[in-house]
């Protein structure tokens, strides 16, 4: 009907007023939300109301015109492609910003440009390295044996404090970043939950026909935030709700990722959402993992089992028949017993019905004395019987119903047994087991560490399938699964669940439910990855395993690890420098004790056993000289009841070297030969214990020689020894790092000094010692060594480091500058990247805002526009009114 009736024009005006009012409301909403983060400007969709079709008998003078305007709901102005681009750039920006933040924090410790204690720009550690050298120069030039090396010691002590301080501050940054990673994981999980819940709400609203614009804004905002933490892809698809309804579904995946099923890894899928977490252990993944192969095996097993246990096959055929028959008989008997006919409820019901029927029949067939009906009683009896039979039939129905129910229940029971048999058949299928063994997710190993196959079960479960946890609540890993400590902070995406914790159905997994997906080292980007890299990247200290150069593929493998330098790299670089300084000073400040101290010579064979009657001056093949150190009374020095000999100390050193090798091999992945974590930990503890014991004994021997040994008169001046130790209360020169480097206790307390010369004095002809009281050639050597170009090897600190060539080559001070320069250069490059990504992100955000943002001028214009149209519609109304008034009141 395209003909407007006389009063329909009022409707047109009313719709116009309503449209203007609604549009003005939308404008108001836009203005109100001008500063709301994530708000997308809205627009009232107006459509012209028009009636299609032509009335066959319409007035020929009527023209087809519209009925006015309709408000078709508010819509958002948004460009999803700009969202994608913005989020891509945002991910890069956040990753680099995080990286830059870490570098900036470290540069406050290691970058000493313009930094100084005296405002002269000579730095702190750098200046201290210079001060130590200067103190050595002064010691060489001006001091003598009689004067202490206090200045050198105090400068060295200050240097160790600076090293410790720097190491401690780096450790603090590391710990803070670890906390930040935990916080970021929590934040991501919150965002994922928010997005999932918003999806759910939007879905519900959509089913009711609401566009849920504000919820979409909130979701977009959450997605923008999420894009800072992770690289995400957002896709929209249509989900069928029922035969007539399809609604939009949002899916968030990790951009560029590939899950076990070859599809992008899902974080949120409609109303299902995952969480990310950092597991305790990193499992070794099966490179041949393929869920589809397992699924195929399961389908086949299912089909075979169903065929085998078909209903028309024995024993099920008989089982069904017997169960039904038994149930029928039993149920019938039970029902009849429960519904007796002659007593109880039914009897009463029958009696009542018959009584009622009798009374009715008697009324129906009154006694007519005038014309008595000979069949009256018969008729009455017939009706009474009919009423009784009706009740009896009801009873039969009840009985039949009970029988049917019992038969169905019996059938279900047999059917469930049949299904269980099928399930058991599938579960026990050798084909399925073989498929899992070949294509399962995780590698399995035997007690010797040899790979035995694969499994999908990462965790240990109890009989009822519940994952077992340790006392801290962490899941316990299955014994046969090969796992490593997750020291690379590998992230996993947990199964997707809805808000009631129901797992999402995923036909592509072996369990046909959403499963945990472990993410490889480089799957993520964004803030999370930025922090992970800061926490894990070791640059030149990376091991073969880190670089993925071993046969065993781990999630944390990264071929580019050697050029990424996070906090551990700078910690280790500082350790390298501290250890090199300590080792060089210690080496140059000591002499072989058998040279300095008086000994008894003896001969030992190749196995270290004494050779009775051996002549130290005339050694036979395989023999060598052993030295027994003497105390001040010329008796053999003893430690733990045994003589202190060179062979004993050499053997202890050998033991330490051997144990170190064992420990290094245990720390090197993959271990060779393969052993379990527990065994490795046990062996490591044993090796450490043996090393500690040998070290303790060796240090005790050295200390005994130093404290009580009888010096050769020509070395009476010798006061060398360990200068730097791994603790302020010992003289242990092993395993020195930036965080433990200290002045050795003997240097601090005096017996040991900076050794001025390694040259012996000499005797005059009367046997008196001619001294070299002011000789300082060893100090000159130390000074020379101070600026020597030395090699710094990563293996010194990280035994399993892949790089064998020197990563630094230079003097102590040059290497410190080189460490700072590497940091500075990285910072410089990253700052450039951040700046560029920042600009790009800003540009893209502006592009988005250009489409989606609220502009005051726009809104002011709209305000004026709708205000005018509102006024015009009102005018139309009054005009129509006056027209009709004229027509009705003025014409007649």
């Amino acid at each position, binding site marked *: 009907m395209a003909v407007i009736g006389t009063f329909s024009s009022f409707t047109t005006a009313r719709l116009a007023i309503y449209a203007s009012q609604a549009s003005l409301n939308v404008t108001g909403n836009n203005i109100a939300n001008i500063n709301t983060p994530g708000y997308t400007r809205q627009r009232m969709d107006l459509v012209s109301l028009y009636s299609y079709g032509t009335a066959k008998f319409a007035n020929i003078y009527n023209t087809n015109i519209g009925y006015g305007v309709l408000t078709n709901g508010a819509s958002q102005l948004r460009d999803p492609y700009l969202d994608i681009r913005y989020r891509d750039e945002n991910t890069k920006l956040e990753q680099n910003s995080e990286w830059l933040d870490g570098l900036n924090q470290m540069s406050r410790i290691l970058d000493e440009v313009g930094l100084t204690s005296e405002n002269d720009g000579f730095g702190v550690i750098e200046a201290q390295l210079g001060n130590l050298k200067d103190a050595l120069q002064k010691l060489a030039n*001006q001091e003598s044996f009689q004067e202490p090396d206090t200045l050198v010691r105090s400068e060295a002590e200050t240097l160790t404090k600076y090293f410790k301080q720097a190491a401690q501050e780096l450790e603090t940054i590391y710990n803070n970043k670890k906390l930040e990673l935990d916080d970021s994981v929590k934040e991501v999980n919150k965002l994922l939950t928010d997005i999932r819940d918003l999806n759910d709400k939007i879905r519900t609203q959509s089913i009711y026909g609401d566009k849920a614009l504000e919820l979409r804004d909130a979701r977009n905002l959450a997605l923008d935030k999420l894009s800072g933490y992770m690289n995400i892809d957002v896709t929209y698809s249509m989900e069928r709700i029922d035969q007539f309804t399809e609604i939009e579904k949002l899916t968030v995946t990790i951009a560029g990722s590939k899950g076990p099923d070859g599809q992008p890894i899902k974080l949120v899928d409609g109303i299902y959402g995952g969480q990310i977490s950092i597991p305790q252990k990193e499992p070794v993944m099966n490179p041949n993992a393929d869920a589809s192969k397992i699924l195929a095996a399961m389908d086949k097993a299912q089909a075979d089992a169903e065929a085998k246990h078909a209903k028309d096959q024995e024993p099920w055929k008989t089982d069904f028949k017997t169960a039904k028959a038994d149930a029928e008989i039993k149920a019938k008997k039970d029902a009849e017993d429960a519904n007796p006919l002659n007593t109880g409820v039914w009897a009463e019901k029958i009696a009542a019905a018959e009584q009622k029927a009798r009374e009715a029949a008697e009324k129906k067939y009154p006694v007519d004395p005038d014309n008595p009906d000979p069949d009256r009683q018969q008729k009455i009896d017939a009706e009474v019987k009919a009423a009784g039979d009706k009740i009896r039939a009801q009873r039969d129905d009840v009985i039949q119903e009970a029988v049917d129910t019992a038969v169905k229940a019996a059938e279900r029971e047999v059917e469930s047994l049949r299904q269980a048999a099928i399930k058991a058949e599938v579960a026990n299928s050798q084909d399925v087991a073989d498929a899992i063994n070949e294509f399962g997710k995780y590698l399995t190993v035997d007690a010797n560490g040899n790979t035995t196959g694969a499994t999908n079960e990462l965790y240990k479960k109890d009989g009822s399938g519940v994952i077992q946890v340790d006392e801290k609540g962490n899941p316990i890993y299955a014994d046969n699964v090969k796992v490593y400590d997750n020291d690379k902070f590998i992230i996993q995406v947990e199964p997707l669940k809805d808000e009631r914790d129901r797992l999402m159905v995923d036909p592509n997994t072996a369990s046909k439910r959403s499963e945990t997906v472990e993410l490889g080292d480089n799957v993520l980007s964004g803030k999370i990855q930025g922090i992970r890299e800061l926490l894990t990247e070791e640059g030149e200290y990376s091991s073969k395993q880190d670089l993925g150069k071993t046969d065993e593929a781990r999630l944390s493998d990264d071929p580019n690890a050697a050029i990424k330098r996070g906090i551990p790299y700078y910690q280790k670089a500082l350790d390298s420098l501290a250890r090199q300084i300590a080792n060089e000073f210690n080496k140059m400040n000591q002499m072989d004790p058998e040279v300095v101290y008086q000994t008894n010579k003896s001969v030992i064979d190749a196995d270290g056993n004494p050779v009775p009657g051996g002549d130290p001056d005339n050694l036979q093949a395989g023999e060598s000289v052993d030295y027994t150190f003497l105390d001040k009374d010329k008796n053999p020095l003893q430690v733990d009841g045994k003589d202190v000999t060179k062979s004993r100390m050499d053997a202890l050193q050998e033991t330490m070297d051997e144990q170190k090798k064992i420990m290094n091999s245990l720390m090197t992945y993959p271990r060779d030969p393969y052993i379990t974590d527990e065994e490795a930990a046990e062996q490591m503890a044993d090796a450490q214990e043996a090393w500690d014991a040998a070290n303790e004994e060796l240090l005790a021997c050295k200390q005994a020689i130093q404290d009580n040994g009888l010096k050769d008169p020509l070395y009476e001046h010798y006061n060398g020894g360990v200068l730097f130790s791994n603790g302020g209360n010992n003289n242990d020169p092993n395993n020195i790092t930036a965080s433990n480097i200290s002045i050795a206790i003997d240097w601090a307390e005096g017996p040991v000094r900076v050794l001025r010369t390694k040259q012996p004095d000499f005797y005059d002809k009367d046997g008196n010692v001619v001294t070299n009281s002011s000789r300082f050639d060893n100090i000159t050597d130390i*000074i020379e060594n101070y600026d020597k170009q030395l090699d710094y090897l990563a293996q010194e600190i990280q035994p399993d480091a892949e790089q064998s060539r020197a990563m630094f080559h230079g003097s102590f001070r040059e290497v410190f500058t080189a460490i700072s320069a590497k940091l500075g250069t990285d910072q410089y490059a990253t700052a450039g990247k951040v700046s560029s990504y920042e600009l790009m992100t800003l540009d893209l955000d502006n592009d988005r805002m250009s489409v989606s943002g609220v502009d005051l001028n726009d809104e002011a214009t709209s305000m004026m526009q709708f205000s005018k149209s509102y006024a015009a519609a009102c005018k139309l109304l009054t005009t129509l009114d006056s027209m009709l008034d004229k027509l009705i009141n003025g014409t007649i």
Partner: protein
Amino acid sequence: MAMRVTTGMAMSLYRYNLGNSTVKFNSSMNKVMTHRKFDSFAEDPTSAVQAWRVRRAMVDNNSYRNNNSDVTSRFNVAFAAMNTVTYDLVNKAAKKADIWAESDPTGGARVQLGQTLTNTADSVIQTMNSAKYSDHFVFSGTDEMNPPFLWDGETLYYRGVNVNAGGVKNPAEQPVPSWALDDAGNEIPADGTTMPDGMPTKSDDLYEQAWIDYYKDPTNAIKPTLSPNDQGMAWGEADEFGVPEAVKNVTDQDTAYNRMWAEYYNDQGDLARLEKMSKEEQNVDLGMGLMKDENGNLVKGSAFNRALPAINMLGYGVDENGDPNNVVLVMKRLGEIFSSCDYETGDFPSGEMEEEANRLMDKLKKCNDDCISVEAEISTKAEYLQANDERMKLQAAYLEEDRYNLEEIDPADAISTLMYDYYCYNAALKVGTQLLSQSLIDYMN
């Protein structure tokens, strides 16, 4: 259609640009205040690395200059001492001796000359022993805590070793005593019963005594002409100075043969000690590129040797005539000889002594020349030290200039940049204050 510029966009861009403007303004303000071009590696990694290199060189330069100054002071002390020795003592004494000896003065003058020379020798010892820098004796080689010389009235010791070592002749090279030869010059055979004519029963000379012992008991005593390696006692392994182990066990009760060789070895040992001590070095790092060779020895010329062993200054050992090389001992001996001359006639006690005096006079002249050479050498080294100091100063200036160029700003440039950034910042603020005030809404009634 042109791109919409929304209020939010304008604000966002404004914030970004205002932030940048603030950072720039702050940075140029810092540069003007700190005078530094950069405050971190990240700002200019290349310049920062270069600047550290220069700063390290500056620190080292300062250290080298301190060392240089210290060594220069030592050399000043040494030079002053040698100057005294050379000009005030040796030169004058030598000249006096030369004049008096040549002019053949009368006996009294010769004896007086002897006294003068003896006194001069003592003065030289005192001068050398009193040359100290701080607590360090500058002429003591590597034993600067003790004075170099000790004169016990008979022997001059340098750090406990006889300076006059080397005078004991090798017994194996000594001529056979004349009384052991027959008229034809052949050695008289020893049979233990027939003694050669003229053989003394006892001699103070150990070599001659050994021959006497040999003739008396050729079966048990060793013939002195044989070297100890050919026959005789097992001397054992020699120490670093060539003195065999067994020498230490030789006493006055030993045979003349053993004592003869022990005396020789000990004398040679002392000579070796003196040679070792004369070569002692005290190397100081003066910025000459301190470096070791592949054998771990310091490369010559990469460090400055500040050791000035007194025996290198004044000489040690003896010459081929057995005369001392040491100027003090030469003067002492000359003093002895001249003092023993007849006070009246000036005659020498013997012809040998006169001959010795003549030789020693020549020797004294030579020693005098040597001292002057040594003094000149010290002077040259001191000059080198001064030049080195100048070089270091100059280097310090260059380094400071390098550092300045690398690190310091050009004030004009920095201030004009600051002003420009200041204007930009102010302009940005101005934009901000007016940005939101102007929109259509402001013009609506």
